[in-house]
């Protein structure tokens, strides 16, 4: 969602920049005759700038649009830094009840389980999504001689499966990034 918004706004901003720059360049080289008349024209003449100042709507509209831009930009900026991890998730208890599980608790369990895997040096987990449909995001630092394919298979069959069962989740979609801990080559000679 946030990624989509980011990309849409970036593409719109980019197109606006390209378009305005291109209009000026094309007008200056005589390729374009509107909205500017020629290379001697100016970007914003005194008359254009003050054209609507006499009307009653001009300033309220300018101020309103600017305020809207400021608010949207601040919201957009905050969305980039906000922690979107799941605080709680709903666990189906046996007796028709629902229990709440702290997101951090499950994150720590998954990370600790993942660190037990052969070939995993260090693991961090973040739970995202909604309380009833959580998603896990894992970062695994691989130790020397890890086999990435095996790590992934075990992650799926042992770690995530255990998390699914213990939290009573029918599904726990996960995204894993496997990195390496830099190390020197251990040469056999």
């Amino acid at each position, binding site marked *: 969602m946030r*990624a989509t918004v980011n990309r849409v706004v970036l593409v719109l901003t980019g197109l606006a920049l390209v378009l305005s720059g291109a209009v000026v360049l094309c*007008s200056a080289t005589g390729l374009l005759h509107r909205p500017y008349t020629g290379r001697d*024209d100016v970007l914003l003449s005194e008359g254009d700038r003050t054209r609507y100042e006499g009307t009653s709507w001009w300033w309220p509209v300018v101020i309103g649009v*600017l305020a809207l831009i400021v608010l949207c930009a601040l919201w957009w900026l905050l969305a980039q830094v906000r922690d979107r991890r799941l605080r709680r998730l709903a666990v189906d208890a046996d007796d028709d009840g629902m229990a709440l599980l702290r997101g951090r608790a499950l994150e720590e369990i998954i990370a600790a389980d993942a660190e037990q895997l052969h070939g995993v040096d260090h693991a961090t987990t973040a739970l995202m999504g909604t309380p009833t449909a959580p998603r896990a995001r894992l970062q695994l630092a691989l130790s020397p001689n*890890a086999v990435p394919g095996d790590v992934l298979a075990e992650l799926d069959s042992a770690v995530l499966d255990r998390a699914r069962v213990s939290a009573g989740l029918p599904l726990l979609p996960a*995204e894993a990034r496997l990195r390496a801990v830099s190390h020197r*080559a251990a040469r*056999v000679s």
Partner: protein
Amino acid sequence: MSELGPSPLPPRHRSRRRRFWSPRRLPAAITAALLAVVAGLLLYDIAAVRAGRPGMAWRRSLADELATRPLDDPWILAVACVAVVLGLWLVVLAVTPGLRDVLAMRAGTAPVRAGLDRHAAELTLRDRAVEVSGVRSARVTVTRRTATVRAVVSFRETEEVRADLAAVLAEAMEQLSLARPLGLALHVRRMGEG
């Protein structure tokens, strides 16, 4: 020095795993901050002038510049060029996936989407390569399509080492379990040569 071009990819392991897409947080944050600052300053000054206070000097001089400099003024042209380049760059950022360092891995049965860092792939292949007897050192570079392995051989016949290396690396690359298997470019040279 003998060479082997990228080998053809085994077709049976190609699976339709989508690439990892960057959320583009940093460009978004910078654009948002700039927008907020520019619009906020303008809003503040306009409101101040509306409230009867004197406007800031930069707005008066900016209005003067805009009203006097012709379109073919070097400054105007420079700013227009910068706007075009910056805009194109933003568009490219918006439509490309980014995260070129993350290689998508093959899916298992469960809904796990995994990506392997290029650097991790390089280290794994290097570790396997130096285990081959006769290999003194190996440098591995992994791009999105190809793993290039440069090995230095200290003893044994170069061609024998090459064959062993090719077999070991083929197995190691299989174990990386990438959605799009890498091609292998293997360069073997004897120590002290080339």
